[in-house]
């Protein structure tokens, strides 16, 4: 038996919960804060002890260097590779998924085989692909990496879109067919709008996969299409200010993803739960 009256006990428990929540927020947000803050520090501040929790002045010299030396262009490379490959993976993946669902293309087995391709560890195929690309002359080209990212994302896109398309009532498509649409028009005017949330959610994950890829980019690029993930690793070495560059580059790499997710949040939540209901 507690001596406190019921409403007081409730109050205590509530404040305790807030305390825990606040603590968790700090634990989770601190690394992100630290990353951002380092990118705004001077070299002296970075190595100061005790650490500088909050710099005197926010200064952008770390970023200026990245842009002046052209290192920041690697973020642009990542952006081009990720968005173009996502675009193609979504187009071909959605068409393939529609075919699997509506025409039972390849029966049950083809769909399973496709997703099994996704289970292949990238490191198991990256060196054979490197040899192939050397032979084809595709190493260190946008084209080569876009093809690779597209191919690597396709199983995921097909698998996800298959689930979303299966949820579309057949009558909607049949009605459109009777109303005068061709199959392609049905895909464009009925299937895409109906699967919109799922489509966006899948596209975001596909984009993030290509955006964050390190292995393929490391092996298959040299100097022309270096991605930001590879660029970050170049800063490990003797330079005195490498922490600043790592931090600034990482921030540049985080921002596009952050905005993508923020803008797409509505669809992400709906798209993910849509898939959860079925298949």
């Amino acid at each position, binding site marked *: 038996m507690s001596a406190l009256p019921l409403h007081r006990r409730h109050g205590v428990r509530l404040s305790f919960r807030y305390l825990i929540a606040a603590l968790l927020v700090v634990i989770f947000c601190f690394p992100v804060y630290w990353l951002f803050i380092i990118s705004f520090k001077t070299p002296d501040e970075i190595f100061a002890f005790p650490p500088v929790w909050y710099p005197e002045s926010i200064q952008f010299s770390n970023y200026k260097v990245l842009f002046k030396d052209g290192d920041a262009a690697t973020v642009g490379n990542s952006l081009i590779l990720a968005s173009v490959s996502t675009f193609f993976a979504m187009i071909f993946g959605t068409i393939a998924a529609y075919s699997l669902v509506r025409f039972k293309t390849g029966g049950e087995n083809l769909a399973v085989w496709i997703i099994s391709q996704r289970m292949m560890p990238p490191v198991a195929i990256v060196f054979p692909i490197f040899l192939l690309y050397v032979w084809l002359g595709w190493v260190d080209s946008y084209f080569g990496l876009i093809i690779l990212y597209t191919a690597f994302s396709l199983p995921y896109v097909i698998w996800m879109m298959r689930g979303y398309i299966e949820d579309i*009532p057949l*009558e909607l498509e*049949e009605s459109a*067919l*009777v*109303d*005068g649409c061709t199959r392609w028009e049905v895909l464009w005017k009925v299937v895409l*709008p109906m699967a*919109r949330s799922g489509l966006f959610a899948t596209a975001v994950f596909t984009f993030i996969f290509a955006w964050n890829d390190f292995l393929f980019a490391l092996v298959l690029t040299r100097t022309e299409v270096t991605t930001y993930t590879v660029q970050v690793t170049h800063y490990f070495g003797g330079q005195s200010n490498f922490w600043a560059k790592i931090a600034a580059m990482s921030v540049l790499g985080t921002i596009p993803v952050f905005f993508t997710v923020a803008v797409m949040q509505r669809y992400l939540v709906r798209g993910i739960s849509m898939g959860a209901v079925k298949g």
Partner: protein
Amino acid sequence: MSDLKITNLHKHYGAFHAVKGIDLDVPSGEFTVLVGPSGCGKSTLLRTIAGLEETSSGSIEIGGKDVTWARPRDRDIAMVFQNYALYPYLNVKDNIAFGLRARKFAEAEVEKRVARAAEMLGIGHLLTRFPRELSGGQRQRVAIGRAIVRDAILYLFDEPLSNLDAQLRDDMRVEIKRLHKELKRTMIYVTHDQIEAMTLADRIVLLRDGLIEQQGTPLDLFERPKTRFVAGFLGSPKMNFVPATLTAAGVKLADGTALELPGRSGLKAGQAVMLGLRPQHIAMAGTHLAKGHVRVPVVIELVQPTGSRVQATMPLGGTSIIAELGAHDVSRPGEKAEIDIDMTRAVLIDTTSDKII
């Protein structure tokens, strides 16, 4: 001229034979109802006409053109689906306009037609709403609007009212009948509701197990059924079937009751038959049936009032039969009564072939 001509149509789903050789000729402007029990192939037949299912063998002509292998969009048909099939991401206006736009109508023409269809269906004030903001009845009106906005040769309906409650269904039935009178188009309507079939149809096509059991006007099928199945399917409450044996002058029931059959000749005495009696052709003694009736004493088993009438269950010749009596004729089980059976309307069914004699 006939708008639809089906010749020896078969449909297989894998090993399953769903439509087993159907011939059908639908004249211009007719309202044809396909009716039959669940699973008899009504939807399959309709969907094959629409081109949504591939024909296994046979041929389909729409408006004089062979469309057996044509795509749905090339068949000049419009269709209303059971679950409305409205596009949730389009408002009512765009839903109705969908088919016109798919066929590249000029936007001015689209506006004009949508407005006219909406007015016809009384949904003019709903044009900017989305399907989720509509009631079931309103949704069905939009679905119908989407079909009638186009000039199709053939309008197909697959159980369009089955998702509505009873009251709404009655209203929409009247509405559809009125639309048909106004538009004078050829319509094919699938239902398993025999009231819908009777009230809407110019012609009923009664299907059973993938075959046409009988076709004709509603009254034709009701009054002159060719088989026991047809006799039992149409009418509410259902026709009563009482086992009997033919005699020279009429029939003898299992318990020995003899009933005279006036105006029948050439009956084979001794043949086992089913005596078919409609509940409407049985009345309380002396109430209103014309001559040609026989009077039988019965004990009432069960009373189900419907308001205007009462459905009374009673034994006759060893089976229970239902009679539709006046609302105040009987009131409780156990009551003794005398009934008149109109034997001029009775049907006799050969028990071996299930055909009407």
